[in-house]
């Protein structure tokens, strides 16, 4: 059933496959993000209570959800690598960690910028904010552990264990609103049957969300490819790839000179 997946365990196949989908991902991300951001910032109606400052929502919420989503993806990669000894999964987890950390930081910073006009303070020790901060620490721990090992294979294994331990944090973030129910407003988007958001506010959000998700996928794809190249730098296929690239470059230089 899963046999079609097997060829992608080969770094070379994976490298060329991601190379093929990368331009599509990039183009779609640009398309969705430009539609979503322009719609959200210029045309969506202002909130009756929060005015125009609610528009930061269109960046804040996708960043916050993606920060958790990337961690979850990292945990799946770590689990895959641990159970099936699938080394490329480690490379993908290593590619995801810094992206996730940046998106967590974006969620925290935009949240602070939103909190200042709405709650009158940059920071409160609310459960959701705190667990987002803990998530940032977990990301930084995983990155630090990655950097501490010389051997990339060992680093991947160690960081994988840490990721799986830290994934316990994710449900705590998700359910903290219900558990503690403090200053942070409840979720507005995920109520499936009856969203508490007006439809003309929701559509730009959908575009923004998909756009940011595609942006994350694009960045991870680029980082994943460079991880593959650094980890396999002694393999013949990487060497031929580099020498082909170099000879092309030199030929171009010559043409330019003429």
């Amino acid at each position, binding site marked *: 059933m899963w046999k079609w997946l097997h060829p992608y365990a080969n770094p070379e196949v994976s490298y060329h496959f991601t190379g093929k989908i990368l331009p599509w991902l990039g183009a779609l991300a640009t398309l969705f993000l430009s539609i979503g951001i322009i719609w959200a910032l210029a045309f969506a109606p202002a909130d009756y209570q929060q005015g125009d400052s609610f528009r930061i929502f269109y960046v804040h919420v996708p960043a916050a959800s993606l920060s958790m989503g990337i961690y979850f993806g990292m945990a799946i990669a770590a689990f895959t690598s641990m159970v099936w000894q699938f080394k490329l999964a480690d490379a993908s987890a290593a590619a995801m960690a810094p992206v996730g950390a940046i998106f967590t930081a974006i969620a925290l910073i935009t949240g602070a910028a939103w909190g200042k006009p709405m709650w009158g303070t940059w920071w409160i020790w609310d459960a959701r904010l705190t667990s987002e901060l803990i998530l940032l620490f977990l990301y*930084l721990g995983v990155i630090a*552990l990655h950097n501490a090992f010389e051997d990339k294979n060992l680093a991947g294994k160690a960081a994988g264990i840490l990721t799986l331990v830290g994934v316990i944090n994710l449900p705590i973030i998700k359910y903290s609103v219900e558990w503690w129910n403090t200053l942070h407003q409840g979720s507005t988007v995920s109520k499936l049957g009856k969203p508490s958001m007006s439809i003309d506010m929701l559509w730009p959000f959908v575009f923004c969300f998909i756009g940011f998700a595609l942006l994350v996928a694009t960045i991870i794809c680029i980082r994943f490819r460079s991880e593959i190249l650094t980890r396999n730098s002694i393999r013949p296929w990487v060497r031929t790839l580099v020498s082909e690239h170099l000879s092309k470059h030199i030929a171009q230089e010559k043409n330019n000179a003429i």
Partner: protein
Amino acid sequence: MSIANLSYRAVFSLVLKRDLTIAMRHKDDIINPLLFFVIVVTLFPLGIGPEAQTLSRIAPGIIWVAALLSTLLSLDRLFKSDHDDGSLEQMLLSPHPVFILVLAKIVAHWLITGLPLILIAPLLAVLLHLNEQSYGALMLTLLLGTPVLSLLGAIGVGLTVGIKKGGVLLSLLVLPLYIPVLIFATSAIDTAALGLPYSGQLAIIAALFIGSLTLAPFAVGAALKVSTN
């Protein structure tokens, strides 16, 4: 009876006895984290001011944060010396499950560092004017919470034991994992100060304890296998 056919219980008590004997021969390892705990707690009144009311308000937080830090400081000795002299590798090579060996080492660590900390905590609570109703909660949260600190900390030590300068990295890895324990423990003590029931928070800490008791040794075993390679 050869070592290979020992029962799980015999292996557990063997490792436990060994670690306790080693600790008894290096009493500094027991006393220094405890001294650190006492000194950190005494620094807070000096920094914040001697008003009894302020101190009693923040006493649970101070005691628990100091407990976290002193546990962190003592974690290093859990696997470090065994890793350096090679006995850790011998243990991992033995036919007994890593789970049992690791659990015995963690229990020994808790008996050496967690238990003295619990015993000395009420004394420090007196210095900080802790609310009289909170002593029971303080002891119970420490009793259920410090084993969690040892268990989760062991994962961090397992991951960093092979790294040369693992100490700072260890705190970065382990402290975020300690946060839930800290939150619920101090919340239980604060609730007790108001005379309200705190069994809810205690139940969550107990759940964290049971959860980490069953899962952490597996993670530690995996981490040690990575570290010793």
